[in-house]
């Protein structure tokens, strides 16, 4: 079956059109918007699968001069697999939103923005023209702001505005850099067509690299442009966190970074830019996960992990070795799976209990078994426990670091591996405080979320297992066509390992059944021989790491972290005097603007005459 290239348009404009339709559906129609969203995303997902199976497709409108076209879409191995996953996440989030968002205000806008985001993201993946790419990329930034303004249940309007404002400022500022970088890249290569750009080298190319990298890491949320994510976590609905910072923004940012490294810049292991990326990656991993460990709010804890995991991707891609880049891209994919899974299980807990504070949760494993198991699997994946998917991609990143050569690189390796242990520690805290330990009295009668919320959780958790145990599947289907053949010096055969682990599990169960595991007796808890109430005496997980938090060096670092000393946004106030001068010029009078335009035209004219 051969597809017409016009099908690419559907993945972009069908969600956008359906979004507009959602705006028109009146409130009286029950499930109207929800069904439109689910049906559209499902259709787009199916089409995306067809595009992925099909060979490369290109859709172009006629030239409008200077080699620029309105639309220049190109699907090849990289963009089509990303397209498939962005559509899958769109589908799962729409499904989850049905119940999760039910009864909140501004639902009409919510579904409009959600579908618009999906369309624009697909557009960014498919664009083969840098300007078109930038336009779609910009739409995703605006919808991020708009979706944030919908607000979570417990956030005050001020906090919502601050968070939205902050993300707009940071990403918008970085997008300025991206625009400049794209300009430089155009100057060097002479074309805006992405597939025609050859790898550049030299000082100006390096400047372009740094500028584009800033745009990419602000979207992906690596340090130092990460600080919008934790703020947004407390302000935006959890489904939005799962959709944008959790998955699509990562896909977009890392897609751009990998295109840069693979196609646009002469990037070799050990070059200065490689070292820069690796340092950014390693610092992001450790610093963000240290912050995650001490959080009390479930969403905020997860959001710091969204930052920390971006570090692994940047580190992997920064190695510049094929296996490292492949690992970075694979980790991007895996991260969007387990990270959205974690955010959604957080959303499910919030839906069931109305609570996000880890100190007020606990013992929910029995009441919410599906959410618990999905959250546990995603938590083990993100901590890189074999044989789940997170382990495989991290393992590839480690191979990449070693392959990159220099013997001082062990420092990156150890930072990244210790980052996993810290990740594990903060998820031990999350799992203990939410699902294990004792259930507070207020949470009696909490029930598992409905099927429309558990299906996305089950799908994401299942993907974590499948992409871990049968990792050769995503590697050969998605990653290898992008990066090319990879060589590995280490050893890891996940399928065999899983078989052997299952055999060992069987041995364990046999031991249980040789023993008297079926003879069970329930007894009250033993607490030092006293008759104490286990609920009253329970130890909250929120205090788990206070020993570390209040220890020497760390207490100072944590205090500064909370005072936003490491937050680039808090230095924005030093720019204000400059912008105040500029804002004087914006007095809103038409005559002022017209005269500015006139002056501009005169200067342009003089320059052109001078050049001519």
């Amino acid at each position, binding site marked *: 079956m051969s597809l017409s290239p016009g099908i690419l348009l559907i993945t972009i404009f069908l969600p956008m059109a359906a979004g507009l339709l959602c705006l028109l559906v009146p409130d009286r129609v029950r499930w109207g918007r929800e069904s439109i969203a689910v049906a559209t995303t499902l259709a787009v997902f199916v089409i995306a699968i067809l595009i992925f199976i099909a060979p490369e497709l290109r859709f172009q409108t006629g030239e409008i001069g200077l080699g620029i076209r309105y639309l220049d879409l190109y699907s090849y191995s990289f963009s089509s697999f990303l397209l498939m996953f962005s559509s899958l996440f769109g589908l799962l989030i729409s499904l989850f939103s049905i119940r999760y968002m039910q009864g909140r205000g501004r639902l009409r806008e919510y579904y409009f923005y959600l579908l618009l985001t999906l369309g624009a993201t697909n557009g960014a993946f498919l664009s083969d023209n840098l300007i078109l790419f930038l336009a779609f990329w910009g739409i995703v930034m605006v919808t991020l702001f708009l979706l944030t303004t919908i607000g979570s249940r417990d956030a005050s309007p001020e906090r919502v505005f601050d968070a939205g404002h902050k993300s707009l400022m940071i990403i918008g500022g970085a997008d300025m850099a991206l625009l400049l970088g794209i300009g430089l890249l155009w100057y060097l290569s002479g074309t805006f067509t992405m597939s025609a750009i050859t790898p550049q080298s030299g000082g100006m190319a390096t400047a372009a690299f740094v500028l584009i990298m800033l745009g990419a890491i602000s979207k992906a949320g690596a340090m130092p442009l990460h600080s919008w994510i934790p703020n947004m976590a407390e302000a935006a609905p959890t489904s939005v966190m799962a959709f944008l910072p959790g998955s699509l923004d990562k896909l977009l940012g890392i897609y751009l970074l990998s295109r840069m490294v693979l196609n646009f810049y002469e990037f070799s292991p050990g070059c200065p830019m490689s070292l820069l990326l690796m340092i950014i990656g390693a610092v992001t991993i450790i610093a963000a996960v240290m912050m995650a460990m001490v959080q009390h709010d479930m969403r905020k804890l997860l959001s710091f992990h969204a930052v920390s995991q971006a570090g692994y991707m940047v580190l992997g891609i920064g190695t510049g070795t094929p296996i490292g880049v492949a690992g970075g891209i694979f980790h991007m994919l895996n991260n969007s799976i387990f990270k959205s899974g974690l955010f959604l299980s957080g959303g499910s807990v919030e839906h069931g209990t109305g609570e996000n504070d880890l100190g007020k949760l606990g013992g929910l494993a029995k009441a919410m078994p599906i959410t618990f198991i999905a959250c546990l699997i995603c938590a083990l994946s993100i901590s890189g426990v074999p044989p789940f998917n997170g382990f495989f991609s991290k393992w590839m990143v480690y191979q990449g670091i070693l392959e990159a050569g220099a013997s001082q690189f062990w420092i990156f390796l150890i930072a990244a591996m210790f980052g996993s242990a810290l990740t594990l520690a903060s998820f031990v805290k999350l799992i203990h405080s939410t699902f294990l330990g004792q259930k507070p009295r207020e949470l009696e009668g909490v029930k598992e979320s409905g099927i429309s919320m558990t299906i996305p959780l089950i799908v994401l958790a299942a993907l974590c297992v499948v992409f871990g145990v049968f990792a050769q599947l995503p590697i050969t289907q998605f990653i290898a066509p992008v990066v090319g053949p990879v060589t590995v010096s*280490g050893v890891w055969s996940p399928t065999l390992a899983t078989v052997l682990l299952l055999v060992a599990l069987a041995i*364990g169960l046999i*031991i249980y059944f040789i023993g008297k595991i079926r003879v069970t007796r329930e007894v009250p808890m033993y607490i030092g021989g006293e008759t104490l109430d286990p609920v009253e005496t329970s130890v909250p997980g929120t205090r788990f790491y206070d020993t570390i938090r209040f220890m020497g060096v760390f207490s100072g670092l944590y205090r500064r972290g909370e005072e936003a000393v490491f937050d680039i946004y808090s230095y924005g106030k030093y720019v204000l005097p400059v912008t105040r001068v500029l804002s004087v010029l914006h007095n809103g009078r038409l005559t002022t603007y017209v005269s500015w335009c006139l002056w501009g035209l005169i200067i342009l004219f003089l320059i052109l005459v001078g050049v001519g």
Partner: protein
Amino acid sequence: MSVTLPWDIFFIIIFPGFLFTAAVGLFSTWVDRKVSARIQWRVGPPWYQPFVDIIKLLGKENIVPTGTGMTGYLVFPIIGFIAVVLVSTILWVTNWFPEATFVGDIIVVIYLLYLPAIGIIAGGSASGNPMGSIGASREMKLMLAYELVFLVAIFTPVVASGGTLSLGGLVGYQAANGWMLGNASCIVAFIVSLVCIQAKLGLVPFDIAEAETEIIAGPYTEYSGAALAVFKLTKAMLLFVLPILLIAVFMGGAWSPWTILEYLLILVFIILVKNTNPRIRVDQAIRFFWVPCLILSVIGIILAAVGL
């Protein structure tokens, strides 16, 4: 050499995976108990005591605290057990057949060795007992404390060998170039990792998570019968597997008859440390690992990087 699936299953169930490791591990706990007893001027138990203990536990009923979810409470002890079985299999197969690319390399082994700690933490936390929660939090903090140093120490031979990650490769490298312990860097790393495995095994002075005199038995407080037996078995197997890991990466690999002697040396060292030190607090442990041990191990790996 390629290994076929029936052989793999044999490896994991009989030798060297489950049965062999469990038998030697339990025997090692007897050595531990006997030597400790002699140090304390007691007679000590007969050699079959650990085996009898496990069988006795299997005969006991399964006591569950009220209001606890049964499935998690019973599954978590097995998590650590299966990881140790797999690690043991990987270690022996790669030591005896250095050419074989079997299951995983040193990174895989390090990550699999997280699982016993996860099992203890999750089990203690699932039991709902406050002592279990305190124990779980201590276990996690202790893990953070030693893991950083352990990583640096265990990667010192990797750096010294020029980036060999596979265990078979490390054994082969040592067969060609002599023991890793011949390098100054690896002597430092070996000393540090000995301290780390003491903590990984949760033995005095690092039995902070169990701390019988403070928090009853920490994560194990509520456990009984078969589940407790699996926990005990896992610990016994670790007592065998962790020294073998050190022998494989530092002492030329575990394939010659000398391995028995090397293993006994490490075991006796562990037992002596255990019997001559008091338990420290968890914050002291973190400071101990993150300051002096870390500095020492970093010196080691820098030495390895410059080729000493």
